[in-house]
């Protein structure tokens, strides 16, 4: 991209977003005029902070600034960190002890007796994060209504503390039965442990995730204890390094819920950072939603190994009550990211029964797809794209990578086309068709299966490979617009600059919804609101820039899964009506006569960052984009036909350019496929809008 922002005077204060990925650390700066500066530099997996500081140094240098000046001018420094995820996935956390109600110390190992992929009963579970000898019982019991059946025997807590001391435990998780209804025993345990074990991190389930369900609470609390002693020192050190280098504001971290939070506020709950990086992509999605003036968007972010699907519906991010990191369940609110193992490196072939497969195996970064020439022999999705002519052969990324089309053809031919007796182009087409069917299924999982009509959404293609599939997937789902951000490669870091500060608060209830419940609901939300307000004030948000989103988790008596219904206006009749309607819409049935239960009160306290001005360049005159070259590209209709297709150079395209497909657009970090009959336009922000089936709706290519 010919970046007009570089060399231009930036107007302070600006925001900086930094997203740490496995390969690259992405940096984005947005100044007060809305000008955007992206920068990428290599990550440092052994110590991600080094990669972060290096990215800041590099970006500052590119801007002709000192690091100190870049940081001093920064009003919001927002960071997405993968350290929590990595600690959990790589099992590199601390030595944890668990305090449980006597008789229930194995909850976390029994795992509710559930094998998700039941037919594969041979694969073992991973070891639990806290082994049995460090799961210690205390004598106490609280009943479901919160009443104390057996008072806490403090001697048993002290005994456990002694054992933890002897064993050198670094963190203790406390999860007692029904503590969501009455936390007093957990609180007392925490006091005793903190007193007896100074320096040991102590976390209680009733504070962290006061939901009904001892397995989910225990798992969450243990994960929190497991991560905290490893990640908090790291984050503290990063913060002081940044301060030392000139950052005057507190570093903000992106939580799994997509909202940012200060390190001090997240130190009680680092498990809330489990999806820190990818969750910020949602803020990007919302940003594009504002630019597009659309409130229904789905993004498919496709990299080398996976495809992440996220949804914004009615302007709101789809959320879930829990996430899984590997096999570890964390029951904290999170943006919903549905991931499938489909990426550019996904390996394809013919199975022993003669059918085509794509995945689950991937070629990874090394050896990578066959066309990389790094020793990979099996065909991947990237190789199929190469065979179809959609990717350009030759050197990429400053000559660090050379794509060889003949290697791709050989691989697809040998493993797919020859066994089926078809041409390599037909084989490659079949691969893409299957992969796009899988992507479609993933999108349907988060729309159709929730009662949302995918046809009403705009599909956003992000990541290195999303833009190759976005138009075709959108077409098959009945969508009208596919969208490719110019900054697809720094999708999450850009989102971070737009992440509001957010605290999620919850109170479980389990009562029938009725007029008599109103005062309890008012009290409950009042309490949550006061708590949220004080947290936001501590973050520096005055009440004028704070907002509160209230929801009730409701279900028909007897059902397991609640539906969250907005409860901004506490009118029992209208909440009831909204729930019945929502149930009808989602599941095609409602039960207006049935009892409705309130499961939880949820409140999101949000401190709004000021909106940035539009940073886009003004419209120039509408003009067809210049064609860089033409080459043989598959028509994509499965016929095996190649057509002489226009190839456009993305770096030469700016606002006002359009082109009627078919075409391939080569961008710096991605390649965009525009289908036959589609029309692509560069919008006022420099992003690509693909209008599905609208090639004849505007001017001709000329």
């Amino acid at each position: 991209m010919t970046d007009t922002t570089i060399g231009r005077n930036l107007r302070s204060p600006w925001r900086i977003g930094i997203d740490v990925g496995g390969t690259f650390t992405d940096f984005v700066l947005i100044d007060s005029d809305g000008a955007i500066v992206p920068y990428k530099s290599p990550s440092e997996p052994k110590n991600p902070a080094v990669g972060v500081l290096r990215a800041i140094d590099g970006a500052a240098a590119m801007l002709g600034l000192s690091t100190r000046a870049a940081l001093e001018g920064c009003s919001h420094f927002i960071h997405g960190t993968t350290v929590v995820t990595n600690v959990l996935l790589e099992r590199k956390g601390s030595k944890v002890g668990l305090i449980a109600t006597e008789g229930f110390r194995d909850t976390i190992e029994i795992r509710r007796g559930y094998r998700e992929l039941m037919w594969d009963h041979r694969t073992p579970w991973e070891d639990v994060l806290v082994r049995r000898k460090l799961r210690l019982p205390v004598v106490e019991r609280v009943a479901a209504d919160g009443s104390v059946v057996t008072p806490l025997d403090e001697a048993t807590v002290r005994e456990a503390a002694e054992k933890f001391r002897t064993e050198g435990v670094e963190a203790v998780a406390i999860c007692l039965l029904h503590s969501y209804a009455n936390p007093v025993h957990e609180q007392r345990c925490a006091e005793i442990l903190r007193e007896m074990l100074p320096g040991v991190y102590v976390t209680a389930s009733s504070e962290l995730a006061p939901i009904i369900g001892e397995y989910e609470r225990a798992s969450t609390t243990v994960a929190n204890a497991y991560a905290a002693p490893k990640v908090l020192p790291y984050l503290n050190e990063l913060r002081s390094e940044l301060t030392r280098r000139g950052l005057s504001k507190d570093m903000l971290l992106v939580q799994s819920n997509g909202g940012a939070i200060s390190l001090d506020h997240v130190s009680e709950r680092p498990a809330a950072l489990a999806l820190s990086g990818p969750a910020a992509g949602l803020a990007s999605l919302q940003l594009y939603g504002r630019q597009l003036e659309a409130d229904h968007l789905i993004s498919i972010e496709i990299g080398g190994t996976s495809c992440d699907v996220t949804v914004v519906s009615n302007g709101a991010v789809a959320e879930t009550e829990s996430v899984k990191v590997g096999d570890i369940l964390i029951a904290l609110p999170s943006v919903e990211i549905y991931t499938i193992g489909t990426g550019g490196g996904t390996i394809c072939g013919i199975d022993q029964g003669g059918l085509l497969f794509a995945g689950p195996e991937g070629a990874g970064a090394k050896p990578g797809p066959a066309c990389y020439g790094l020793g990979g022999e099996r065909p991947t999705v990237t190789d199929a794209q190469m065979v179809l002519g959609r990717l350009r052969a030759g050197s990429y990324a400053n000559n660090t990578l050379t794509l060889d089309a003949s290697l791709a053809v050989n691989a697809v031919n040998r493993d797919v086309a020859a066994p089926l007796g078809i041409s390599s182009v037909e084989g490659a087409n079949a691969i893409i068709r299957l992969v796009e069917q899988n992507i479609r299924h993933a999108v349907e999982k988060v729309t159709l299966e929730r009662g949302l009509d995918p046809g009403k959404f705009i599909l956003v293609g992000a990541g290195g490979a999303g833009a190759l599939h976005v138009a075709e997937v959108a077409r098959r789902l009945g969508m009208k617009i596919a969208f490719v951000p110019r900054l697809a490669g720094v999708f999450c870091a850009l989102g971070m600059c737009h992440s509001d500060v957010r605290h999620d608060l919850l109170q479980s209830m389990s009562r029938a919804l009725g007029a008599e419940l109103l005062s309890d609901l008012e009290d409950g939300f009042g309490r949550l609101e006061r708590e949220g307000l004080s947290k936001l004030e501590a973050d520096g948000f005055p009440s004028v820039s704070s907002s509160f989103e209230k929801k009730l988790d409701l279900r028909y008596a007897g059902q397991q899964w609640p539906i969250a219904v907005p409860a901004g206006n506490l009118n029992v009749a209208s909440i009831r009506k909204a729930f019945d309607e929502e149930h009808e819409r989602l599941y095609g049935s409602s039960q207006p006569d049935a009892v409705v239960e309130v499961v939880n009160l949820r409140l999101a306290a949000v401190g709004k960052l000021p909106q940035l001005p539009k940073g886009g360049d003004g419209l120039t005159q509408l003009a067809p984009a210049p064609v860089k070259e033409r080459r043989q590209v598959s028509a994509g209709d499965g016929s095996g036909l190649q057509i002489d297709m226009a190839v456009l150079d993305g770096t030469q395209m700016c606002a006002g350019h359009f082109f009627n497909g078919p075409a391939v657009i080569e961008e710096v970090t991605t390649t965009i496929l525009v289908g036959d009959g589609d029309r692509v336009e560069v919008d006022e922000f420099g992003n690509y809008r693909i209008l599905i089936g609208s090639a004849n709706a505007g001017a001709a290519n000329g």
Partner: protein
Amino acid sequence: MADAVLTTLLQNQLDHISQHMGRVMERTARSPIFSESHDFSCFITDAQGQLISVADGIPIHTGGGGFAVKAVIRDFGARDDIEPGDIFILSDPYEAGGNHLPDWTIVHPLFVDGKLFAFTCNRAHQSDIGGGAAGTYNSAATEIFHEGIRLPVMKLVEQGRTREDLWRLLKLNSRCPHLIDGDVRAMIGSTKIGAQRIHALVEEFGAKAVSKGFGDILDYADRRMRAAILAIPDGIYEGMDASDTDCFSLVDVPVRVRVKVKDDTVAVDFTGTAEQIKGFKNSSIANTFSAVYVALFSYLDPSIPRNAGAFRAVSIHAPEGTVVNARYPAPMTSNTIYPATEIIYAVWKALSSALPEEACAGWGKAAHCISSGTDAGGKTYVMYHMHGYPGTGAVRGRDGFPSLCTVITLGGMQIPNVEAFERKYPVRIDQQEMRLDAAGPGEFRGGTGIDYRVTVFEPAEYSFRGEGSGIASGFGIVGGVTGAKADFEAFDRSGRPIATPRYGVKRLPSLGIRMASSAGGGWGEARNRTPERVLRDVEDGIVSIRSAREDYHVAIADDLAIDLEGTGRLRAAAGR
């Protein structure tokens, strides 16, 4: 498009559709048995009732669905009485292709160009269907009439109009009409969504291609299954697993199987199996076939599609009048668990001599009871004491799991949280903890099983199913040792023991239950387990120092250090 590519895309899409149906059911049904326990299966058949795709419900549902659709075709299709807009319901295992009475099946025919094209179906275990005990399991039954309402194939919806009289009949015959009402609606909803999506598929690919695709999908599974069977050495392998009770008295009830592997076919012959019994542990033909499929698919490659094509290579002979193919009017509600478990184990044991490396040790059989009563609101509740589920068997490469919901689920059924149970039922659960020295020793040991204690505060009716408290059921394999059996005791609130039957229904006052659930069997010789793993189990309170010495031949000192020399001696002696 090449045939193989089309078949790939169709199979992928049909599996997606059946999963979508399952999702609708899970989310909309009222009974926790569906949302939490997944005791249902959604499936798609072709116009002949051949199973094309089934979503992962619980495994014992696999493969039985085709019998139901074939009964619909037999009763209505033959006289041209299947019309667009019709929806059928059935349950009877003798007359209507059911597996047992509590599983009701909704069969939704769909038409393309006026011709019958396929069926979308949902088979789901109802909360209560009348009969002699609340909650569908009447362990005192001696005839099928004691087990609840029998449904032949009936039109529940006739050309788009629900038969309200029939609907009332269904509700009237259940102790939980409010659950039946919501759950059957959810079942119908899921089949409607499935049908809509198949219509969309036909629109995309054309009726001819989809119809041909059905056949190709079956052929593909056929090839995969035959390839897996080819890897088993030819031969005749025998296996037997037995119960020691007919629910009324101690009597040997063996399920005997001869598995003949020849080239790419498997013939499973139950000749020699016990005659049908007085109690409700008799199998229907649909259930016996399902159990054999569970045994084979769980032993072989789990990625083989479990459809009618894969079943072609398997022939099953189940002599009439035996517990695996009972004659009317034998009671049979228990069959999806027992004798399904004995059928699975007999086949597993037979295969273990053919492919010992892949052998599966036995999962413990359950011994918990079901309590039912009336809640404060006057509604009938039924509580399965699920927190006392048994431990599972080991396989090469992993120990058994501490507690899963019996082998017929393969762990695909979730145990609810204790907190959820205590909010719902008048109980307090006092313990759910892994057992000590119960797991069957082996190079890979069995699952521990559970120490379970509960107090039930109100009088209730109890249906006892103490299968696991007779003979130890979690058998060891290829040198592994059998896990401990279950123990069950009940006592009144002052601590005096209450006599309870192993099987049967009894009304009892408020009481306490203490149960140790069955543990799983071990795989391979225990002396080959690494001393470090044995020590870890000792530290974790799963294996005692004594058991480490006697069963694993590992010497561990009181300070929990491995005595390497002593271990060497013990192991050398054990190897002789």
